[in-house]
Structures are given as structure tokens and as C-alpha cells.
């Protein structure tokens, strides 16, 4: 029988929070965090003796990136590594599971290379670099937990990268064999180079993401052919593995994974077009002509009357940088050019009201103070988006 003194009260269980109010008791269940686009989980695949990653689908311009794999690998993927859950959007869990184990690959040879979209949970084989040496320091997240060189534990990391093929800028400089500084015409021809025909929007794993190639004209070498890379890449996440004490050899299932995300929202991407230089933008010593080649590609020829090799080099660098065809990523957030979400300036422990961000800030501060949460590899919701580059509007 219910007691009038209020003994019929709920008790908090694991992952549950009870708030007692004058209107009744309020139960909040603290589920797992929302799995944002590009959420990456690392697993040890015992049968293959590999560390693999599953990336929750993120999208670029509405398209799902693929993972390069083989038919045999898709067929042999254990179900626990291809989780089909009630992610939003799955109309029918049974059908979604069927899609993931589609027999479409049955007719293919076991080693046939196929590109599988992320929503089919393809496994990405990870590759790693050793931290704590020449390849970079061990992040503070681990050293604060006692993972140091003295502890006998090793830390390796591998990057999961979004790869978008694109047209690339090429530059060729030619000058007369009897170059006379101050009176010779030096010609710089800018053109476009298409990506490899089999290149596609995909997610790849590598020990460390390669930064875009920087333009290096060399020293005094005017006869230089320069080509941009035919892709843009963006870091999705970094997977860390921490070894048991005094481990040797390659990482195995006894190592502990941790993931640091760099990407949280779907993306848009575009790249500039090679265009004629407006006459008003051409300095006095330059003349430029633009022609459209077969296939719609463009070619920009710039003639320069050189005064010195340094002048020529500087002009070549400026023209190349100004006409770079490197693409730009951004997340549509409705917020204009700035996609950084504001954080609460004050913390509050009030249970009511709309200041959810302030409550989260207070909870996080309390957790850190109690030692339950030293820090984390990922930021808290609502995360950070890739901002829109206003230069695209020029």
C-alpha cells in the first residue's frame, strides 16, 4: 500500500537520474551519446588479425563515400563488426540487415575490388604510426593517464581520411634559351589535370594524413613543371591504440582503442573553375590569354617581361596560388560563414529552464573536479562544424 510519507519513490539505477519535483518524479535515462555522421568505431578482427574501423555514414554533397574492399572481405565480415542498429532512417531493421549482407557480391570473384558505400558498413583496415618518437608526441589525454615511455606502454595512431577527387592545376614555365633579364618574355601556362579515372569519393586509412603539397618553385629554376594533387583530403578521425605494458610487435587484440573525431557533420564541397584573369587585375608587365580546350578544360597563358629571376619566381608563385583549384569543404549550418557554435558563458546547476548548455557546462566541470573525467578526446555536443569560406563568393 502506498505510504503517505512518500516512500513510493523511485531509486536511481545505473545510467538513470531521478529528479523529484512538486509535480512528481522525473526520470532521465542517460543513453549513449548521439552517433553523429562520421562516428568511427575501431574493432579487433580476430580472424584477420587486423584492427579495422567502421565509419557511420557521413555525406558529401549528398553522396555516401565508399570504402575500397573485396567481395570476399564483405562476405566474411562478422556480423558484430557490421552493426545494424536502430539508427535513424532505417525503415525496417530486417531489410537494413539484409542490405548489409547483400548477396550482390556472391557472383564476384573473391579478390574482385569493389567500392562499398558507408551505409553498408564496409570495414576499413587501419594502419598506424608509433607515437612518442619522431612521428609525434603522445597526446596529453594519454600521458595524464600514466601512459608514458616509462610506463612501458606504447601508443600508435592511424588516421581515417575523407578523399575527394578533383581537377588539379598544372603550371609550366618556359623561357628563351638566351634568357636576358629585363627584356625576355617568359611564359607561364596554367592548365587543368583530371583525376585518375578510377578515383572516387572514398574513405581511406593511413598512418598520418598528408598535408596538401606546398608550392615550391625551387631555387632559381624557372623551367619547372608544377602539378597540384588531384584530390582534396579531410581528416575524419584519429584512432589511437594503447598497448599493455612492455608489448612488442604489431598491435593486436590486447591493445585498447580510443578515437578522436575531427568531423561531426555532413559536408558540402566545391572547387573553383580556371577562369580568364580580368584585364583590370593584370599588372603592367603581364599579358594573359585564356582558351577553352577539348572537354571543357581551360588553359591560361600568361606572358611576363622578366626583370629578374626573383621577380619571375614571385610572379609565378602568386599566379599559381591565386589560381589554385583546391576544393573547399563546409557544413551548411544556417549560420552564415561562422559554423562555430557558441558555448555557455556561465554554468548553472538549475534543474529547470532552457539553459541546457549552461547545465552541461556545470556537469562537465563537476565531473572534472571529481576526477571522473579528466578530459576527453572529443568536444561536447553540438560539436564544431567546418565553416564556409567566404572566398568562394568572390
Amino acid at each position, binding site marked *: 500500500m502506498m505510504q503517505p510519507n512518500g516512500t513510493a519513490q523511485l531509486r536511481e539505477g545505473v545510467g538513470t537520474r531521478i529528479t523529484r519535483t512538486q509535480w512528481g518524479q*522525473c526520470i532521465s535515462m542517460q543513453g549513449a551519446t548521439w552517433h553523429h555522421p562520421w562516428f568511427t568505431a575501431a574493432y579487433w578482427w580476430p580472424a584477420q588479425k587486423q584492427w579495422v574501423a567502421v565509419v557511420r555514414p557521413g555525406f558529401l554533397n549528398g553522396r555516401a563515400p565508399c570504402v575500397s574492399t573485396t567481395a570476399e572481405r564483405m562476405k566474411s565480415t562478422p556480423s558484430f563488426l557490421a552493426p545494424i542498429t536502430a539508427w535513424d532512417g532505417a525503415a525496417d531493421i530486417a531489410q537494413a540487415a539484409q542490405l548489409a549482407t547483400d548477396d550482390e557480391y556472391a557472383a564476384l570473384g573473391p579478390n574482385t575490388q569493389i567500392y562499398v558505400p558507408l551505409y553498408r558498413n564496409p570495414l576499413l583496415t587501419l594502419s598506424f604510426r608509433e607515437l612518442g618518437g619522431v612521428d609525434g608526441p603522445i597526446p596529453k589525454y594519454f600521458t595524464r593517464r600514466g601512459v608514458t615511455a616509462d610506463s612501458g606502454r606504447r601508443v600508435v595512431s592511424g588516421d581515417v581520411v575523407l578523399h575527394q577527387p578533383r581537377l588539379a592545376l598544372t603550371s609550366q614555365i618556359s623561357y628563351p634559351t638566351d634568357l636576358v633579364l629585363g627584356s625576355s618574355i617568359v611564359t607561364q601556362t596554367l592548365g587543368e589535370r583530371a583525376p585518375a579515372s578510377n578515383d572516387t569519393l572514398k574513405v581511406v586509412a593511413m598512418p598520418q594524413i598528408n598535408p596538401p603539397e606546398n608550392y615550391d618553385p625551387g631555387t632559381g629554376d624557372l623551367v619547372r613543371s608544377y602539378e597540384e594533387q588531384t584530390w582534396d583530403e579531410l581528416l575524419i578521425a584519429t584512432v589511437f591504440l594503447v598497448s599493455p605494458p612492455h608489448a612488442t610487435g604489431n598491435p593486436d587484440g590486447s591493445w585498447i582503442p580510443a578515437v578522436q573525431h575531427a568531423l561531426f557533420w555532413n559536408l558540402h564541397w566545391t572547387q573553383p573553375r580556371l577562369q580568364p584573369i580580368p584585364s583590370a587585375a593584370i599588372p603592367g608587365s603581364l599579358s594573359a590569354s585564356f582558351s577553352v580546350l577539348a572537354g571543357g578544360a581551360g588553359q591560361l597563358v600568361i606572358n611576363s617581361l622578366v626583370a629578374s629571376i626573383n621577380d619571375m619566381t614571385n610572379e609565378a608563385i602568386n599566379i599559381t596560388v591565386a589560381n589554385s583549384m583546391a576544393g573547399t569543404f563546409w557544413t551548411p549550418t544556417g549560420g552564415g560563414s561562422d559554423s562555430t557554435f557558441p558555448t555557455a558563458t556561465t554554468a548553472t546547476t538549475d534543474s529547470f529552464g532552457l539553459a541546457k548548455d549552461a547545465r552541461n557546462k556545470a556537469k562537465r566541470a563537476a565531473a572534472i573536479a571529481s576526477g571522473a573525467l579528466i578530459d576527453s578526446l572529443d568536444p561536447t555536443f553540438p560539436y564544431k562544424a567546418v565553416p564556409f569560406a567566404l572566398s568562394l563568393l568572390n
Partner: protein
Amino acid sequence: MTLDDLAAKNRIQPGTGTLIGSTPLGFFVSNPSSGMSFNHPFRPVLVGTDSGAGIRFALGVVDGFEPQIDGQPMSGSSGALPPVLKLQGTSAATKESWALLNVTPNDQGLLDKDSKIEIVHRTSLSTNIGKVGSIPLALIVWKNKLPVMVWPLVFFNLHHIQKTSSTAAPQHFFL
């Protein structure tokens, strides 16, 4: 304290991330499984999986204007339910299709109350260059001529900008 007061005081209310239901046998408390999404703008939900399948969206706006589906405001009108985007125009070979938000700005390149802003279903994506700007809102995955799952592509209300040029066709950006 009356029994009614006591019942009111001990009433259980759903807090964050919690769903409470009542049955003749008592109440149940459930908790969203990991990975569940939140009710963001333009969130798509598949309605039915047979030939009458469609998508219903949570309300989202672009530059403050509400898009239309089949000539109806996407949130519904005059007390009617929100309209369903019918998934038509697919074939047996269709593996992916998209729900697109198409906007037609005015002569100044801006959206106004008379601009055509609509959500349509297509089996290919647009270039986003020309008179009509387009952004995919949802990706629909098909299997055996049935829509199996839908993925949200946009999580926020949108802002549209048209880049005009004297030498090239207008280019549309959503940010």
C-alpha cells in the same frame, strides 16, 4: 493529503532521453538506443515501405521561408497533417535517390515570399549552377524496388546565397 494529491505527487514524468508508457499492467520506461538522432530541421522519416512509400520531414526553413511539398506547406496547412513526399520516378535499377530542396530566387538572386521553394524527389543530383539552386535533404537507399532506409543530409535550417557573375551562370550555395 488526499489520494489524488498523493498520486499527483508520485506521478512519473519523462526526462531527457526517456520515454514512459502506460499499460494495464503498469508503466514502462524505455531509453533510446545508442545512435538515435534528435528532432532536427529537415529530419526525414520513411512512411511505409511499399509502393505508396514516402517521406515526411520535420519542419525546416531556408532564409526563414517554409518549403512546400506538392504545393502544400511542409508542416501542413489548415490543421492538415504534414504532406508526404511521394517517392516516385524510380526504376528497378534504382539504388539511391534523393529528396532535394529546390529554390528559385528572384531577379536579385534573393529568396522572397513569392519564390518557388519546394521539396522534390529525384534519382539524380543537380549541379547547383543555373537558375535553380538545389541541396539534397535526404538520401534514400533502395533494394528490390523498395525504399530500405533514408539518411538525413541536413541538420540545420538553411541560408541561401546566389553568386552571380557576368561571365558564368549563377552558382548557388547553402550555408
